[in-house]
């Protein structure tokens, strides 16, 4: 299938982009690796695509002693290859390597993935586990945990876009574990488990809803009540394996 007709705009300045995005039917386009398949199936039909991936401020990184701020248009491949610094002792490159396929990683972006808000994607869970902060075009700072309200639904208001993601540095030597349960490379995850040693964080990500931070493994039934028993069990396995990986 071919997409329904739309206009493509690539404004040079953020303010121009935001003006365009305020129009009805406008939709921001970053890497397009999740949006384009849906557009090609005509499941999504924006009237205008506002190409934001080359906007000043959405590219590049800024490092401080406490955190690294990634431009929203940082690609998965740049994270995988260490072209941008890694504040997470290898967690982010490890995760990036496991996203879809290399050709998709070359174009797909960190901010785009978060804004798309597919709970089966990696970054929503990872950013929530890392305690990252999402910085938006209205200068809001939104904690990654709670950013996704429901599948495909975020705390962003209409016309608001992600400019950057601020990821706190893990202490040197702090260990982590990551487990994504899927049958095939590139398949949508059925469950995601993340364990971080310091600061101690446990997270269960699942396809049916937003990722959830846990105090302990046993929290899953109460913290993820919307999942059926089998999905809860799978989430538990993912977290358990992430812990085992962290401790190995």
């Amino acid at each position: 299938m071919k997409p329904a007709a739309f206009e493509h705009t690539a404004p040079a300045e953020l303010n121009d982009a935001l003006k365009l995005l305020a129009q009805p039917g406008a939709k921001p386009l970053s890497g397009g690796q999740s949006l384009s398949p849906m557009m090609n199936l005509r499941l999504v039909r924006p009237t205008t695509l506002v190409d934001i991936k080359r906007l000043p401020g959405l590219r590049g990184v800024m490092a401080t002693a406490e955190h690294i701020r990634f431009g929203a248009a940082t690609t998965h491949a740049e994270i995988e290859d260490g072209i941008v610094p890694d504040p997470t002792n290898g967690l982010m490159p490890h995760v990036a390597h496991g996203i879809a396929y290399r050709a998709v990683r070359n174009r797909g972006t960190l901010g785009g993935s978060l804004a798309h808000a597919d709970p089966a994607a990696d970054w929503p869970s990872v950013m929530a586990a890392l305690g990252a902060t999402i910085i938006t075009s209205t200068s809001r700072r939104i904690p990654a945990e709670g950013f996704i309200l429901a599948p495909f639904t975020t705390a962003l208001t209409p016309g608001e876009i992600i400019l950057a993601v601020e990821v706190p540095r893990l202490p040197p030597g702090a260990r982590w574990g990551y487990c994504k349960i899927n049958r095939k490379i590139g398949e949508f995850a059925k469950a995601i488990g993340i364990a971080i040693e310091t600061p101690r964080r446990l997270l269960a990500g699942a396809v049916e809803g937003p990722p959830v931070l846990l105090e302990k493994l046993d929290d899953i039934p109460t913290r993820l009540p919307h999942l059926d028993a089998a999905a809860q069990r799978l989430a538990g396995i993912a977290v358990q394996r992430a812990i085992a990986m962290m401790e190995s």
Partner: protein
Amino acid sequence: MKQGVGAPITRKEDDRFLRGRGKYVGDIQLAGMREVAFLRSPVAHGLIRAVRAPQGAMVFTMADLTGVLPIRAPSALPGFRRTDQWPLAQTRVRQVGEPIAMVVAGSRAEAEDILDAITLDIEELPAATDMLAHRAGPPIHEGWPDNVVLQALVDDDISDVQAPIIIRRRLRTARQHMAPLEGRGVVARWDSRLNQLEMHTSSQMVHVTKTGLAECLGLPESAVRIISPDVGGGFGYKGILLQEEVAIGWLARKLGGTPLRWIEDRREGLSAQANCREHHYDITVHADRDGTILALDCEAHVDSGAYSAYPFSACLEAAQIGSILPGPYVVPRYRCKTWSVATNKPPILPYRGVARTGVCYALETTLDAVARAAGISPVELRLRNLPGPEQMPYLNVTKKIFDSGDYPEALRRAAEAVDAPGFAARQKAAREEGRLIGQGFAVFCEQGAHGTSVYHGWGIPFVPGAEPCQARLTPDGGLELRVGVHSHGQGMETTLAQVAHEILGVPVDRVQLIHGDTALTPYSTGTWGSRCAVMAGGAVAEACMELRRRLIPMGAHLLQDKDAVFADGAVRAGAASVTVAEIARTFHRAPQNLTEAMQAQGLECTVGHKTVRDTGTFSYACHAVEAEVDAATGHVTLTRYVIVEDGGVLLNPLIADGQVLGGTAQGIGTALFEEMPYDTGGQPLASTLADYMLPGASDVPDIEILHMETPSPISRFGQKGIGESGAIGPPAAIVNAINDAIAHLGREVTDLPATPERVLAALA
């Protein structure tokens, strides 16, 4: 380097593909070409109340297609119920995706815009989606009492069999989609000079398509030319006459010259086009205490979908189950009842392996249960029941003639390769570490290249006869071969050239294979049934032999020695010789040097080939698998995969391996990944490749192949058909390995594919 039969030379066709210079249907650009798209039914069963097209759009429904007949693929088997598959639905739709209207626009995107603008008023009816529950009805076809397309019985009353071991299993294989990387596609125009429809279509069988299309369009066959260029994978998916081909053929003729193109996209392919493989078995094996099979009893259902697809018909799959369920084994007593059931799903088509994959799965997994009951190893059980080499040719219980081979030896070699005797110790050690590992085997045979005597009994729209080849020596000493089969990955541009080289000594790179065009090639049923190496290979050999018979007297005449003989690409008399190229040049450009009779005879001939007996070659194989089951997630990892394959004499071992490896990857898909689910309303639930999962490189292990080469006594070089073989064994071998891994828990997987969910359900 040797180039003839048996030489593992690299393929002639590779270079164009490696440079992106292949030419597929979608690559054809004709001036003024317009794009066609189809409005398809969103419901599985319904009555069309109205189709309202937007003003000014080119939209056609069946009411416009005057004089066009439905696609009919009946069988002459008693009781078969015929279906009419209209190119565009008349009033009733019977599957999601059934074409309802055809639109034309300047681009595909614009054509889809028109589809969006059409208002379709359709009244949904209850859908028949389960072949067991809906066998009795309500009927989806007018005038039928139920949904049974055909019921068949291999009737041996086995009630007197007294067996100490009786194992019964109910097993199901999933509905699948063949999913070649390239979908279907058509580029067509009416050639007003030749008064002929010229249709490029991605097809395995151009001549059969031409016959079927001419019938539906009411045209003489001379008014239809079908061209199938490079084809991006077939596997059975392209062995069917499409409704779209008929509809576009009609429109091309009506427009009188405007070229039309329709390229199936992945969503159309997955949600609307033919499927395969959905079987249900209720199978019982009766065995003696030592595991000797005493009788086999089965009731099997095949979900045939809504229509009987042309030309193989809706009954082929079930009829095959009845005839091949006993597999490679000595089965003294046999009863089998089969039903082909019509449902509100796309028609079922023979996919690589056809019913053999399901049959092998049903029998081999049940036999493992027999082995467990008998307390012997799966290898031992099979060795007790396979016919020995001394029994060849072996006439089995369903009158199949296994032509040659040593079946037990294939199993022994596989068992040795995977250290079957030592596996129990490894399995025990793994269990102590908390790991579940298992070993599984499957032995099967594959009838290929079977012909007239097998097919005429089914009374389906085509019956293969002698396979033809036209051979022509050109003035420069090159050889042109014209065949009615089609090569779409099988490497026939290379292997058939090797056959020609074997007979005539013409270098492989001077042999050109012309195929895939009804105007240029002799009539053939095309590429299906693992027949090309045997049938087209034999035909090329016969045609080249005929040329050789003509070349020898010409050479002898030129050498002035009546005792001259043919050897190594030349006619020779002592030290003197005249090459094939020289004779060809003489014939075409200096005929005065030959006799009048030789000039009349020429260096071009068409010869038909049949095997010594047309009951088919029987290749056979043993697949041996080791798998690890993750008891927490249900994931299965294949850790070892060994195949012992006997394909008789291999025309090109490199290419034969490729066929086995590719088939095996597809079989792994059947075993673990591929499933086309439908909801109770008949909605297909996998419309993208993210939902319908094909095995990727990391899902397929490094497969090892060991060869045996027992010549077939019935084929030209002793070669056997093996094109489908790889796809037959994997589900049986893999599920046997899974069941072995969890046998100590008393659990078994019964349904395909063995997804994590199914493995967990078995463990629960």
